């Protein structure tokens, strides 16, 4: 296995989705190629650092603001739908009343 072959298998290697015989080849290559070893270590660190760091905070005040806005819009929409349904019901029951 050369570096290009190794790179092609990198995603499957990280995601643990590599066939056992290929995994042996990948490990063998890693044992002999310092550059690929560095690429694996620093790519793994890249993933970990993004996963662990809260790149964007999601504060309680933001959550609360969003919740109020979302639920207000949903309630309005539900009330409008309910009113429409009531009107429809009334019309079906007594078309002359409107």
């Amino acid at each position, binding site marked *: 296995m050369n570096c290009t072959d190794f790179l092609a298998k990198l995603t499957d290697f990280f995601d643990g989705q590599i066939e056992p015989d290929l995994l042996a080849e990948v490990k063998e290559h890693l044992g002999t190629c*310092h550059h690929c070893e560095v690429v694996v270590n620093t790519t793994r660190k890249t993933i970990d650092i993004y996963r662990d760091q809260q790149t964007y905070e999601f504060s309680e005040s933001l959550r609360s603001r969003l919740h109020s806005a979302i639920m207000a819009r949903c309630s309005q929409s539900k009330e409008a739908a309910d009113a429409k349904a009531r009107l429809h019901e009334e019309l079906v029951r007594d078309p002359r009343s409107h």
Partner: protein
Amino acid sequence: MAAHTTSLAEDPAELSGATAVVEPHPDLELVERAKAGDTAAFEQLVRQYDRQIYRTALHITQNREDAEDITQDVFFKAFQKLDQFQGNSKFSTWLVRIAVNESLMRLRKRKTSKTVSMDQDVQTDEGSIPRDFAEWRPNPEQIYSQGELGDILRKTIAGLPPGFRTVFTLRDIENLSTEETAEALGLSVPAVKSRLLRARLQLRERLSRYFRKANEGSK
């Protein structure tokens, strides 16, 4: 590939080959209750996924106001279209799919003269071949304060093309599986894998510039 579709309908192909009997996801009960008019059940779903939807929108748009608007729009749209959700995919994946569509639409609006899609700039070869082979020692967390590191990470991911940024966000930050990422983005699994590899390598390359420099400076 064509620009990403804005349809909320679930893809029947998602079910192909699925023969194993699986336990229903706990979200399904909440969705059924919400469909029957229980707003508290819907509120519970909002609480479960608001952070994920906000962060996904923010990673794609790189704009806090847009991300707030999109988060509201996603849940409102989901509330209105709950009947279209048949439970063939995870509810969270369905929400993410709406969030991605809404976010890409925002980007398109912002860049009025350009089309923004999952394919934008993904043809670039930048970063697809590693060039930097310096280890990061000591760890970046030991060199930078939380605030500085956060700035570097935000700046670095913002420099990726939207198509790569989105795949990396869903797969590596929000922890969706490769299959869920493919489903949320309307891409094939091999396309997700290919973009993920290049996104990871580009980010590594860009971060290496910071962290190698910091190492050299600390010697």
